């Protein structure tokens, strides 16, 4: 009997159900979230006519579309520097033709698109970066882009038109920060900049590996923001990027580094460097630089040489300081992240934050934003 006892006891213990560990839901890389859509989606193949303000609204049939609003502000009284970001993504999880005709199309919750929104605020002096996200489906007025009135909204985060201006106003209320800003184009007569080839921005060799892409590169911004419990009135410059595509990233590419810079001499520069699996720049990297009058010069991967100088200490090793050289234009800048940790710590992982542009002698010659994906 004595020998049997431990056996029985062990059997009893083993019978008690063991808890299986829960799988941790990690973040999603940006490319995966945006994803490549199949052939059933509308493809970006040929150039198109851009009509404004109509094209500020949404375009059906594509897999992904976004409104990407960033800017740098200075507080009125104290002169503190802030950076803000509001990115609204519209995603079609299923391609349009593939939708089975709804059997009983009565539920108001049926949605063909879902929205993802990211908002961020960088407090340079307080050395803090705030970020938040929202998800909503395009149903019941929970999210959507409307033409009349012109408004793009996810929950209570919104980019709306004011009068003729789009963007005219952007509002974000998050857990520990908020901003409510008004915008106006610096130069009223300047048309939106069509990126790539008249708005068709190639991202890869295969057809469809491209997006329709335009930007409003220089807007004046002003309004109120709240960070760390304090309210500020601030003003500065802003930038709106607009893209829609069904294959925003070619197969074989791991991510991109994107720069939007406002230079003190009135010039604006946009450049995206695509990277392959080994981290080497891809030939489809491209950009544009526009001077104060609005004259634009296309940039290709041969024109711009980017070299990362300093990396973050964290595992992903984001490059936080870059050297950007445009020999043909005698530009030699270093681009510095104002704050090291401006990672977007939301469901999708990437780095996006405020940067300063310095010339060879170390003088600040501009401000802007950079976005780096594919390092996770």
């Amino acid at each position, binding site marked *: *009997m004595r020998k049997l*006892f431990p056996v*029985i006891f062990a059997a*009893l*213990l083993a*019978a*008690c*159900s063991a*808890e*299986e*560990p*829960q*799988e941790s*839901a990690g973040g*999603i890389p940006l490319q*995966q*979230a945006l994803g490549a859509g199949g052939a059933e989606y509308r493809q970006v193949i040929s150039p198109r006519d851009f009509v404004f303000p109509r094209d500020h609204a949404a375009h059906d049939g594509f897999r992904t579309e976004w409104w990407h609003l960033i800017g740098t502000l200075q507080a009125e009284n104290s002169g503190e520097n802030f950076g803000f970001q509001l990115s609204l993504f519209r995603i079609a*999880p*299923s391609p349009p033709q593939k*939708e*089975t005709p*709804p*059997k*009983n199309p*009565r*539920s*108001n*919750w*049926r*949605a*063909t698109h*879902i929205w993802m929104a990211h908002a961020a605020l960088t407090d340079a002096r307080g050395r803090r970066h705030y970020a938040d996200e*929202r*998800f*909503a*489906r395009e*149903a*019941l*007025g*929970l999210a959507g882009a409307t033409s009349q009135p012109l408004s793009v909204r996810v*929950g*209570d985060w919104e980019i709306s038109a004011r009068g003729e201006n789009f963007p005219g106003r952007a509002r974000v*209320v998050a857990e520990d920060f908020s901003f409510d800003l008004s915008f106006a184009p610096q130069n009223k007569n300047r048309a939106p900049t069509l990126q790539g080839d008249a708005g068709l921005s190639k991202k890869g060799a295969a057809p469809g590996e491209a997006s329709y892409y335009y930007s409003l590169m220089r807007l004046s911004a002003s309004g109120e923001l709240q960070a760390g419990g304090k309210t500020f009135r601030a003003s500065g410059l802003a930038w709106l990027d607009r893209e829609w595509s069904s294959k925003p990233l070619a197969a074989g590419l791991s991510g991109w580094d994107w720069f939007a810079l406002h230079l003190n001499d009135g010039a604006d520069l946009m450049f995206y460097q695509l990277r392959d699996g080994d981290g080497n720049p891809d030939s489809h990297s491209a950009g544009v630089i526009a001077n104060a009058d609005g004259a634009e010069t296309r940039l290709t991967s041969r024109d711009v040489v980017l070299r990362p100088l300093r990396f973050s200490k964290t595992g992903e090793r984001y490059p936080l300081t870059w050297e950007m050289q445009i020999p043909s234009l005698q530009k030699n800048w270093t681009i510095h992240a104002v704050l090291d940790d401006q990672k977007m710590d939301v*469901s999708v992982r990437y780095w996006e934050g405020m940067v300063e542009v310095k010339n060879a002698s170390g003088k600040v010659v501009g401000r802007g934003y950079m976005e780096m994906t594919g390092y996770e």
Partner: protein
Amino acid sequence: MVKDRLALALARRLARHRWQAALSALGVALGVGVVVAVDLANHSARQSFEVSLRQIAGNATHRVIGARGLDERLYAQLQRNGIRRAAPVVEGGVRLRGEFFQLLGIEPLAESAFRGWAPPLNSSAIVGLLGGEDAVLMSARDAQRLGISAGEDARIKVAGAEKIVRIAGVIKSGAGGDGLLLADIAAAQRLLNRFGELDRIDLILNASEVARIKELLPADARLVVPQARNRARAALGKPFQTNLAAMSLLALLVGGFIIHNAARFSVLQRRELLGCLRMLGATHAQLFARVMFEALALGLVGALAGLLAGAWLARMLLHLVARTIRDLYFAAPAGELQLPPELLAKGLALGLALTLLAALLPALEAARAPPQAVARRSLPELRARRELPKWALAGGVAMLAAAALAAVPGGGVLSGYIALFFLLVGFCLAAPLLALLLARVCAPLFGALFGFRGRFALRGVGAGLSRTGPALAALTLAVAATIGIGVMVESFRASVSGWLTQALPGDLYISIPANSSRRAATALPPGFAGDVRALPGVAAISSGRSVEVETAAGPAALHAISFAPKSYASFHFTEKLPDLWRGVERGEMTIISEPYAFHRGLRAGDEVSLLAAGGARAFTVGGIFRDYGSERGALIVARDPYARWWGDDAVSTLGVYFSDGNDAENLTAQIKSVAAAYDARIRVTSNREIRGYTLRVFERTFAITRVLRWLVVAAAVLGIFSALLALQFERARENAVLRACGCTRGEVFALGALQTGVVGLFAGLLALPLGWLCAQLLIRVINPRSFGWTLASLPPVSTPSVYLEALALALFAALLAGLYPGWRTARASPAAALREE
């Protein structure tokens, strides 16, 4: 290890009678097994019920619910106003492969904060859900059990209609989700036909948001805290489970008797050994410790065996318990049997404690063994006889205590069970004395019937009382328990039956099957009621609408009824205000069922507040009526006021009253054809069918009681068996003398059987009054205090079968138990017995 010669001397003698040791261990095993089984089954059922409630609730701190369902636009409004952490829910019950599942419609984009066990956004499962088809997710465990894999189509039954869903994926085991089908809210609305509505919105709110949201809610929506509601819901099953647990303790009690008996026997049988050891210098304490140790060792073996048996039995019981809970509370299935170590340890401790207690007296007797060289057999008997009156007195006091406890009004269920316990124990303490008196009384009768054999048998009972006493008490206990429960069940059945007759005055009842009991039932097509009424031969119809409404104390079942003339008589009121029906028709009064009144502590004249479309409305309780339909209880209001204030004039049930002198069959067929003309699953049942169904559910609910009853009786039979074996051993000499004097084997067997029969008969006779008392306690005290029901108390004459059955059971059990010992006695060689000094 040093040889403990004292222990050896005693233990070896014990080994000669292994059967006693085995029986003793078996007794513990049985008692512990039943207790552990019920405990485990109850625990598992309760756990999974709570787990399922919790996993549905998730991390929500608050919840918005409506009078009848929320407008879905409220969700968008909340979002627009900055209430970010909100999750809309649409839910309903469906049947998949015959099993009940909760279909949970959610917004996957809002879920991550709420129900962490739902798959993350990037999973293909969620993409599948949003894909727009009728896609659902189910738990891996359920999928495996039902043999369904991801990607397959499955048929489900919703509100009687069949629909096809696609299993888009499975949720990993251990994360939760058992008994659930997860769907996108759009799909759920379509499957459950709940367009435009939400069942609730789960929220995670901080303090400032709580204040803000109250201004955003419409009048008919309310903000509640889920945890409290879940607790209240889970508490509903408690009385049922308490009853089970109490019954299981009965088995433990009987098991204790068996141990006691076996220990007594082992001491008596080793009296000479013990005396010799005392003579040699073993102290009281040494012998006491030795006997206790032996008992504990057996108790440990028995308890461990009991744990194993209990775990096995629990699996079966869980099925029964879960089925009852599902039948009564429409909850998610019970999941697997859990074996929490604390419960097993508790069972073990209980078994050991029982052994200690039961072996205490015999061990003391062993310690007191006189170190005489010659055994004086009659000593323990004489002592036992002398002490009988003392025990009987103690028993009487206990029974009085029971009466006192029961009589105190306002006591809880627990005091009711304690009273029952005192009653049983008290009677059992007095039982040996009563048996003795009974023997004296019966002596002349027996003598007349059986001659000297009868007198011999009777005297034998008295003479062997120290051995047969506890066994007699155990059998009495078990049989009384069967009587008590049997009478209670009979009276319950009679009450339910009588109630059904009264409560269903209509000839036919028409309804549409509900998709779950928690939400409004689907309505009968408009115009249908009128068509039925118009048929010749239909004298009148009553119509009703059954919904779940919010009261101040949580959800409650509400029936809005438009009465037919005969309907009024179908209520049996225990309390009633004057002018009741007028008050009800005017919408000022409501009538409530007994259980509802009991649970909320309501009397006629009190006020009840119900959440209607325009806000809360107050009703006066006009009357309290008997209703066995549900132990949650229900409220009844008139249909017109209900339609007015809840904006719902749909009808979900009809009661049809035929005119006299009509061909019922013909009329029924006509009504059925009218129903068939509508494209809806209308169900037409006769009141006879409803009665049949109700009684079937009733029987099922008491099935578990029957199982336990038989276990208890089995334990008692074991007790008798061991006692008789002991007796046979003691009587070896006597029987040998009988044989030497010329009695044949058959005659010795017959004598033994007669004696055994007397024991059984006495146990049965004593069990009759005890059983009746138990029944009274159960009917008048325990049942009302558990559920709030008043049961008809039937006089014994109306349930003669229960008593006769019990008597026969006692006799039969005793005779059965006596077969083997009697056979051994008859077979024993007289020479061997006579040879012993």
